[in-house]
């Protein structure tokens, strides 16, 4: 391997030294021309054409699947009907996406497919008093990119779930929610207005709520579901306000109108015009929504808890698709974000810090599914960093590669959990590689881990490097601090990923069963627990996904040899509104890292750091697993890092912080308000109510209070009337 790298280095170095092909920037000039390269072209928006009607099938088929599952549930149909109809219909949706992709690739302009009128309010030509939000689709290459992996992964994971969820009482319910999720996600990605995006946004939140709380008898699952929904709502508030501000500023919520005006604004910026603060505030609000949905600081707390849901859900919703909605939102509105460099800066820093913090927690977590959850948060952080440094292409690349390898990882974890009755503690599982029937799981785990760790020449390696390198060349973001932190995080990532692998999959065979049993676990009688290896559906899906995760690096390799760092998804991203125009944020093409072009050197630096991380994991968790625990040095080391470890194990006490700062005070306030309401607000009224009764009672003690107060009320009212007439008249 080293020889190959050396060869590549010597062969490609001269070409690469001048090829600064930063993602999405049509800039390939050398260092001397860097200043001239600042003449960035403003964002241009081509008026959309009408698109093909069949694209509506992409949404309609999952919805149909969901309704069918509802019918199965209502009729009490047993068996695997729900799974099969869902898999088939989702596959149909995937095929429709492929066909739509064909049409989109041939079209120069984005396509709009009109479904039906949804919210429509018109008042002649009075400006700002009409509101239109149709149920229509907006198809460009960004949409297609997202929909391809959403529907593709959904189909595969549904197939996986057909086996995984077998024997569950809520089999039909599960697939109903699952398909509904795909529908909502399609609305989010394909909607042609912010309102339809918001529908999908809240809709996926609902499905996430329903699916996390799928095992509704478990209090922890119910609590996690509630937490996810509420934390997401906090983010949604930002999105909703951003949407309203966009409406007041642009007079419309439809993309075609917003982007038309944004293009004008960017052209204005190119001529030195100021952008009003009211428009610059829009991205600041939108990004709050993105932070909530994509589990970024400080709103990431719901995602680790969301692992209470069944594993296919974690794989699809909480790793591959829904959590990338925030990335989609910012990518889609990148031209708006570019109007406010401060917003981009915030996105970059939040992303980078999230990546780092989540990685530290991932290092100290024992539950392998939660390790994966934190790694998801961390990887999403990378994507946000990419967006923040205007490498939307890097973010796009990473979204896709991450979707595949993270789904693989989760499904492999799920297979373990399924086979070992819910056991997920990496201290209680070991040597799965050597067990019969677990080869495929272990191998796909390895593939996933390699990609996640950014092992050289894996897909994750390429996509992550695009982002890290770009953070070194983009101007105005705290120098190279962002990039260095991202590099450090890459090392941590490699460590915690392989910590799981070395602990669970290699080493001596040893396991303890968990305490969750499926309905069909007839072989479990409490004593002789036998893990049951996954069946064909799970294995097929694992093989397919890891093949995809591996194959994803092939285009990178090909391009790599062609001396391009653009990545194969870049073309898709830059043919959409996500194309960065660099109108407000410059790119310093003279920037170097370790004396070389960052895009070139990064492959070696981050690859090297990744390998170091893996080696450390190997040392600590494979080679020295037994010695490490007993040797005196280890104890000292443990004492030295003790406090940090405690903090990291306790997730930096963020949950406690929120509980103390928000939930408890609000809960207290709620009770205080209730008390005030009963005592004071109502008390004053009761006092007024009591007065006429008392007066009336003193006048006519023999009659009941009710009629008197009636009379007094009437007289009082008339008196008041006269008083008012007298005063105002």
């Amino acid at each position: 391997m080293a020889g190959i790298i050396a060869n590549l280095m010597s062969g490609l170095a001269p070409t690469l030294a001048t090829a600064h092909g930063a993602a999405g920037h049509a800039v390939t000039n050398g260092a001397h021309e860097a200043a001239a390269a600042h003449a960035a072209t403003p964002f241009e928006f081509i008026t959309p054409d009408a698109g093909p009607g069949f694209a509506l099938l992409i949404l309609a088929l999952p919805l149909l699947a969901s309704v069918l599952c509802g019918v199965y549930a209502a009729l009490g149909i047993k068996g695997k009907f729900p799974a099969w109809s869902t898999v088939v219909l989702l596959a149909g949706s995937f095929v429709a996406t492929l066909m739509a992709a064909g049409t989109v690739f041939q079209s120069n302009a984005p396509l709009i497919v009109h479904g039906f009128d949804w919210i429509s309010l018109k008042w002649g030509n009075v400006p700002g008093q009409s509101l239109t939000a149709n149920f229509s689709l907006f198809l460009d290459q960004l949409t297609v990119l997202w929909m391809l992996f959403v529907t593709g992964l959904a189909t595969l994971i549904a197939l996986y779930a057909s086996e995984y969820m077998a024997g569950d009482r809520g089999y039909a319910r599960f697939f109903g929610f699952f398909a509904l999720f795909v529908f909502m996600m399609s609305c989010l990605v394909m909607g042609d207005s912010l309102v339809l995006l918001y529908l999908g946004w809240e809709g996926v939140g609902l499905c996430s709520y329903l699916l996390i709380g799928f095992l509704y008898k478990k209090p922890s699952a119910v609590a996690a579901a509630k937490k996810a929904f509420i934390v997401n709502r906090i983010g949604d508030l930002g999105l909703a306000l951003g949407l309203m501000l966009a409406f007041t500023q642009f007079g419309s919520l439809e993309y075609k109108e917003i982007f038309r005006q944004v293009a004008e604004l960017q052209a204005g910026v190119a001529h030195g015009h100021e952008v009003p603060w009211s428009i610059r505030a829009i991205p600041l609000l939108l990004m709050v929504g993105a932070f909530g949905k994509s589990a970024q600081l400080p709103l990431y707390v719901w995602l680790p808890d969301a692992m209470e849901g069944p594993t296919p859900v974690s794989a699809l919703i909480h790793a591959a698709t829904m959590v990338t909605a925030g990335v989609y939102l910012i990518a889609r509105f990148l031209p708006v974000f570019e109007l406010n460099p401060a917003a981009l800066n915030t996105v970059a820093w939040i992303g980078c810090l999230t990546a780092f913090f989540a990685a530290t927690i991932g290092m100290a977590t024992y539950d392998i599914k939660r390790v994966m959850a934190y790694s998801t948060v961390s990887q999403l952080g990378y994507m946000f960093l990419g967006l923040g440094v205007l490498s939307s292409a890097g973010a796009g690349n990473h979204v896709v590669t991450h979707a595949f390898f993270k789904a693989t990882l989760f499904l492999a974890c799920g297979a373990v959990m399924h086979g070992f009755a819910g056991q997920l503690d990496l201290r209680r599982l070991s040597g799965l590689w050597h067990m019969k029937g677990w080869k495929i799981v272990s191998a796909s785990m390895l593939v996933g881990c390699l990609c996640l760790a950014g092992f050289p020449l894996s897909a994750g390696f390429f996509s992550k490097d695009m982002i890290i390198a770009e953070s070194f060349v983009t101007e105005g973001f705290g120098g190279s601090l962002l990039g260095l932190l991202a590099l450090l995080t890459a090392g941590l990532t490699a460590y915690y990923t392989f910590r799981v692998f070395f602990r669970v999959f290699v080493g001596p065979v040893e396991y303890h069963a968990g305490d969750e049993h499926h309905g069909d676990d007839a072989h479990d009688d409490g004593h002789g627990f036998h893990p049951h290896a996954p069946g064909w559906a799970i294995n097929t899906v694992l093989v397919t996904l890891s093949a995809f995760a591996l194959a994803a690096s092939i285009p990178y390799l090909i391009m790599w040899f062609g001396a391009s760092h653009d990545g194969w998804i870049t073309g898709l991203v830059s043919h959409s509104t996500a194309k960065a125009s660099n109108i407000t944020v410059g790119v310093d093409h003279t920037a170097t890292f370790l004396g070389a072009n960052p895009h070139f050197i990064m492959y070696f630096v981050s690859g090297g750091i990744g390998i170091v991380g893996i080696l450390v994991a190997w040392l600590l968790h494979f080679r020295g697993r037994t010695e490490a625990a007993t040797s005196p040095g280890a104890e000292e080391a443990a004492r030295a890092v003790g406090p940090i470890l405690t903090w990291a194990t306790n997730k930096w006490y963020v949950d406690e912080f929120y509980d103390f700062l928000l939930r408890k005070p609000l809960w207290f306030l709620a009770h205080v308000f209730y008390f005030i309401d009963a005592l004071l607000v109502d008390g004053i009224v009761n006092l007024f109510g009591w007065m006429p009764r008392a007066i009336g009672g003193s006048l006519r003690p023999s009659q009941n209070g009710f009629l008197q107060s009636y009379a007094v009320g009437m007289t009082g009212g008339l008196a008041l009337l006269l008083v008012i007439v007298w005063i105002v008249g």
Partner: protein
Amino acid sequence: MLTALILIPLFGALLVALAPVRFARLLSTVVTLAALVVSVVAAFRFNWSYPGSVSFQQSYTLVEQLGVRLSVGADSVSLLLILLTALLGPLCVVGSYTAITTRVRNYYAWLLVLQAAVTGVFAAQDLMLFYVFFEFTLIPLYVLISLYGSTNRRRAATKFFLYTFTGSVIALAGLVYVAYVGYERNLGWSWSIAELQSAAASMTRREQAWVMLAMLAGFAVKVPLFPVHTWLPLAHTEAPTAGSVVLAGVLLKLGTYAFYKFVLPFTPLAVMQYAPAIAVLAIIGIIYTGLICWAQNDVKKLVAYSSVSHLGFCVLGLFAVNMVGISGSILYMLNHGLSTGALFFCIGMLYERYHTRSMDEMGGLSTKMPVFAFFLVFFTMASVGLPGLNGFVSEFMCLLGAFQSGADGPGGVAFGSLGPWFAAVAATGMIVAAMYLLYMVGRVLFGPLREPAGHHEHEKLPTDLSWREIGVLTPIAVLCLVLGLYPKPVLQSLEEPVAMVIDEIRTVNQRAITEAEQAMLADPTQPQTPVVLATETTP
């Protein structure tokens, strides 16, 4: 047509009261269904091309000297609310089959009277007639609560009656003053709402402020707006299920409807000037009562308080005084009637089985009652404002209207006088709503099964919902979905009437500004008094 809609339930009530007990349920079902059919026919015959003009007009002079006429008619706003009333009628009747076992005739008769009265309020085109019906709604509901409610029913009923009655008497004062102004202008008494409008708008700013204050006193109690909301949780908690449904579904809308019908067009200057103050009350209501919901253990009280919180959005939208806000607010009236009405039905069904409303005593019911769980989650989501269901469209529009309010309009008069901050603060109510409603759903439906001690199965009701109960909830669920996905016809029908109201408000404000400017120009010696212009808000 509309007269028939009032008379059918009224005579039906008489019939039910006189007929043998065993026919009471059947008769009242038939009567309410007949009313529903008539209202649907009315909807088909309504002139949808001109939804702002009053259709089905009928007029009959009652008191010649005072100009009081029995005049009914409906524009699209009235008609939509009448349809909602007619729809909830049969559902309430059918929903009460097993809940009411004593004094059955009396119960259904008063329920029908209540429906007639509410329909009358929405159909009235005469101020006096409106007020008579408005007050008349109190009596049947008072009877329903005080006779068929739970433990604290007497106190709740009395409080409800006195509270709302006192309020409306003050409102009457305001309305009479408007009629008096009309009398002076037109040299004759007239109570016609349409005729009074122009007269009312010619009042001075000071007069308008007083009249608005008087009207607010009555109508805000009805809505209810913070801080005059305390009668509602009590009344709701103690009322029988159908009473709660009608109360939440349509009676509270009398307040917001009156805001729309009288406060906005009668006092345009005051509205523009004091809208921010009213909006602040609405926003306090949204958050304050939302948090109170969270502190509840009584599930019915929780939903009752949530009504206060939700109607805050409705009021906020109305006082945004722009197309999006007011249309959204009217749509909110319908949607809230459906989703909260349905939630009260759900809780009633639970109460019939467990005889408790305490969430401490029951929980994890989705294992035992999956169908019920489906409906409760569905209506909760409609109530939370989940897009795709009805609540979202209207809540979103109310907030959007408030956000956009204050934006410049043609002629130098702004559309409304609120602004982004109002919407931003109110929107936190969306989070609070998610908090307390999911808290409720989580406790009632999920987790391990808990049932009250000594609970045994109801002898007449199945463990899960019966077909009758499903039949009550399904039409509402379908409507929630339809209004959530295709609100376009409703919204279109609102365009014209809302545009008329806004035009009226803006014209009067414009005139006031022009007059003030002219007065200043004509008399330069006079020290310049600051004229409060509606445009003086931050964009």
